[in-house]
């Protein structure tokens, strides 16, 4: 269903023209730990995501994968460890103190987040959902923001619905708008938190197709998902979390055909059946 051809072709072209995938870290996570009410959800997690990479995070529910993603833009505050986005540490300033809210907001805006439950703003139409943050956070002009928003809506196949209100859209359409809304901030890294888990099965494909297109365009993305075929097709790296620990990270071929841990083998068997 998901073929890797497009993205591979794009990447090899980039390599050929010298715009090779960089070795710079888009996101770098060190020794991250987090507990909720004494339960350790993340335990000393290290993860490096290079610019242009697509990393999918797999694991059963409760494994901490959503928490890991939500720590990256500080929606959850980790207890220990550090997270850098494009070299800038989030949540803690140089003096080691909690970041002032304005500075935190600025660093957050370097990431784009897509939620499981879409979280569109229902009082704004589709176009204004996409232009809201660029105008009022980035300070773009209305004309510029709208022109960019229309391009992005075109990209996610939602330009015909620019004037519609979120309440009138299907789940798949809402999620595609939410993706455009996040892209409008021109983030350095896109975070997807189970983007298709709240969708009817027949709507999953349209959203995955959009994310897959983005991966082909070279966006840096971290995707928490349960879609194995999708993960295998788009990932540069697959990360498996179990009880708050990363127990396996590998390229998709190795991960899906020859995992090194028994736990992952069991997980994949169950998914196949």
């Amino acid at each position, binding site marked *: 269903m998901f073929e890797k051809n497009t993205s591979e072709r794009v990447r090899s072209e980039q390599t050929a023209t010298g715009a090779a995938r960089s070795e710079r870290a888009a996101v770098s996570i060190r020794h991250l730990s987090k507990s909720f009410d004494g339960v350790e959800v993340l335990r000393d997690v290290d993860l490096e995501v290079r610019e242009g990479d697509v990393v999918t995070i797999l694991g059963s529910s409760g494994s901490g994968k959503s928490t890991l993603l939500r720590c990256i833009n500080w929606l959850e505050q980790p207890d220990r460890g550090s997270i850098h986005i494009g070299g800038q540490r989030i949540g803690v300033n140089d003096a080691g103190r909690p970041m002032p809210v304005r500075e935190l907001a600025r660093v*957050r805006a370097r990431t784009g987040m897509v939620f499981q439950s879409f979280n569109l703003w229902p*009082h704004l139409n589709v176009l204004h959902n996409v232009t809201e*943050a660029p105008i009022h956070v980035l300070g773009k002009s209305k004309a510029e923001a709208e022109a960019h928003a229309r391009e992005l809506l075109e990209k996610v196949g939602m330009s015909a619905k620019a004037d519609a209100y979120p309440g009138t859209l299907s789940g798949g359409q809402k999620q595609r708008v939410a993706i455009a809304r996040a892209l409008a901030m021109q983030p350095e890294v896109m975070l997807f938190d189970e983007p298709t888990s709240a969708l009817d099965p027949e709507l999953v494909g349209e959203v995955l197709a959009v994310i897959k297109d983005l991966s082909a365009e070279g966006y840096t993305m971290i995707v928490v998902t349960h879609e194995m075929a999708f993960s295998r097709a788009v990932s540069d790296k697959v990360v498996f979390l179990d009880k708050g620990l990363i127990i396996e990270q590998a390229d998709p071929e190795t991960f899906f055909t020859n995992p090194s841990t028994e736990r992952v083998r069991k997980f994949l068997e169950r998914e196949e059946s």
Partner: protein
Amino acid sequence: MSNWEILWSARDQFWSGFFSTMEIFGLSISAAFAIGCGMLYLLEGSRPRLTVPLRVFIDGMRMLPFLILAYLLYYGLPAIDIRLDAWWSGVGALAVYHGCYFAEIFRGARLTFPPGQVEAAKAHGFTKGKMFFRLILPQIVMQTRPLLGNQLIYALKDTAFLVIITVRELTAAANSLSGTYFIPTEAFIVVIGFYWAVSVVMEIIVKQCGRFSAKRGFDNV
């Protein structure tokens, strides 16, 4: 001359009372709305040093008979050397009193506001103020529209209390005419007509506003 003819000849007094009532109502309800929004914003924070006294103040106001608040402002404040004339005492009392009601209505809606939308706003780099005024408040207002309409009518009726602290508004006009010519029934029937007419117009306007929110999926008008 019949009683009605007497009232007709004194219609200027009704009109000036009516305009005075509308002026008081318009000004105080706008201020009350602003106060309600401001209080909701202050309640957004998680600092109990601020939110606890504010909640106590809001509840204290709501549990106070409006007339007593008007008395306090008009007769009580001079004791601490603050002198407001009757008109400003009335407007101030209405604004604060109904501001607290607005705040409580908004607070109730805020409790059920989807947290995911707030997270989305944070994730898109919004800070508290902009998030509140652009994303939270507009939705809260749309969602509470029917309750706000109700509160407008309460506030309009409360303006009639101000006759007691000598404000020359609509009820005061009827009062003085009925005293002068001893025609209480007819004079008060006329002012009932005024209050009803204004309330009906407000109901229609508030209902029309419902179309705006219904289009956004907030209402079933």
